[in-house]
């Protein structure tokens, strides 16, 4: 509910993500805020409880490999056609991260509960899955309108901070998300929301009859920072493509602990990388 700082200083932006925060990030194809993520690694974020909504790829793997993450909550970490997420796999094997495995609609359901200010959401499915067996925030309850109809209750998920990247915001702090409506859900459910964007417009997006319906009102937005190519090496729909050569390099280096150090030195920690 604070006013929006609109600038381009990513270090300033990620200072709003404290160590230990429940940090929510969107699906890879919703465009993760990768430039901000690298800034977060540079500021040596620690013990993050990372909520991937509902899955992630490079962004989560990078944060894990950089040692920023204590817990991963969500329904999948994958590098898609490039293969399994290397750091995630290694950290799991070595017992270096805690897991809260889920299924996509349960992640959404938890966020929707927070969005509505209710303590839980009922949800079909899940009963008999080991996902439920390992989660104390999923519990079976009875449908109060039927006899003998067990249904899963999924506890509300309220992230401390949501972080994502979109093509467009305006000077008032309204952020356009297009088809990626889970970003709206994320902003509604989270205590604070940080966005990076390609472009900041002067006119009020909310007042535009066509852009308005797909725009997150500034009331939910803590801060916006402009970051050109802020999703790189991910792609951004309508703007630029995924950098597949970079993905290949990542897969090669991140396969080992030593290679990962090399990757971080080369692409994250070095000053002046990718115009940051």
């Amino acid at each position, binding site marked *: 509910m604070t006013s929006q700082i609109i600038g381009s200083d990513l270090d300033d932006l990620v200072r709003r993500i404290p160590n230990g925060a429940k940090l929510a990030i969107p699906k890879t194809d919703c465009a993760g805020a990768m430039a901000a993520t690298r800034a977060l690694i540079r500021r040596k974020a620690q013990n993050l409880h990372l909520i991937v909504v509902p899955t992630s790829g490079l962004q989560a793997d990078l944060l894990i490999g950089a040692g920023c993450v204590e817990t991963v909550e969500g329904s999948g970490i*994958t590098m898609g*056609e490039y293969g399994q997420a290397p750091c995630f796999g290694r950290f799991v094997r070595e017992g270096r991260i805690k897991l809260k*495995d889920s*299924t996509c609609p349960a992640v959404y359901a938890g966020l929707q509960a927070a969005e509505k200010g209710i303590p839980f959401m009922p949800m079909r499915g899940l009963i*008999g899955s080991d996902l*439920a067996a390992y989660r104390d925030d999923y519990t079976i309850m009875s449908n109060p309108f039927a006899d003998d109809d067990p249904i899963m209750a999924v506890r509300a998920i309220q992230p401390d901070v949501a972080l994502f990247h979109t093509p467009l915001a305006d000077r008032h702090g309204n952020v356009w998300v297009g*088809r990626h409506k889970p970003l709206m*859900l994320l902003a509604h459910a989270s205590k604070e929301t940080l966005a990076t964007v390609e472009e900041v417009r002067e006119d009020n997006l909310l007042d535009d009859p066509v852009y308005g319906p797909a725009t997150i009102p500034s009331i939910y937005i803590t801060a916006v920072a402009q970051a050109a190519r802020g999703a790189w090496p991910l792609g951004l729909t309508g703007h630029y493509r995924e950098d597949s050569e970079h993905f290949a390099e990542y897969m090669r280096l991140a396969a080992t602990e030593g290679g990962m150090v090399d990757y971080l030195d080369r692409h994250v920690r070095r000053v002046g990388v990718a115009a940051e």
Partner: protein
Amino acid sequence: MSAGSALQRNKPIVDYAPEELLIVTVARLLEGIRHVAVGTASPIPGSAALLAQALAGGDMRVSILGSRESQVWSDTGVELFDCAGQGRIDAFFLGGGQIDGQANINLVGVGDYPHQKVRWAGSFGSAYLYFVVPRVILFREEHTRRVFVPKVDFISAPGTSAPNVYRPGGPWALVTGLCLFGFDRDKRRFRLESVHPGHTLEEVRDNTGFDFDIPDRVAETPAPAPGTLALIRDRVAVEVADAYPHFAKRVFGIGRETEAAI
């Protein structure tokens, strides 16, 4: 590649790729479906859905997640699951790093959870969609005892549920590189429906870690008819190249130079 062609008896000799046999086999399982949804990492099911749509004269809706040319939903997240919960999705595909004889699937990993020796991506939407989509087709090309185990190490989504559990959906069939299984929800067991041309019952048995029912006479999976193959190559290949460019290039030799959607 032309696997299978030399082994077919009483059929016209037509060259086809093993992927094309699988596409045709899966498409057959979609007969009568009004709406099938396909996940992003499923090029063979995706091709099969598009083939089934072509065979149905277009009177079938195919929603390929992540396809940039045919948007089906106005939302990239929740809508798929809500749509399935409303009963508007009749068929979906799931795979599994492990699948057992009760059709339990494991997308999480091998060994003792949580710190497993092999960790896969995770359960995605399986623990929900497996319950609410009436015709879930399990698809796993690799047919080995590593995949088809007696009991999965982690149940991402159970194959069957107690009678009081709301479950309009569940496993319908399992298509592998060797054969086609049906699933009997009452008996909670797979039943071998047919073995693909060039393969044998013994091969299936040797490579399956769980028990399954075997009919008295084991059929051979029908090879693709020439007209169907033509449909795949002339039409499906082009459509599928949008969502699965690498696959389209490898199998059909067509497609774009880039995999990244803009």
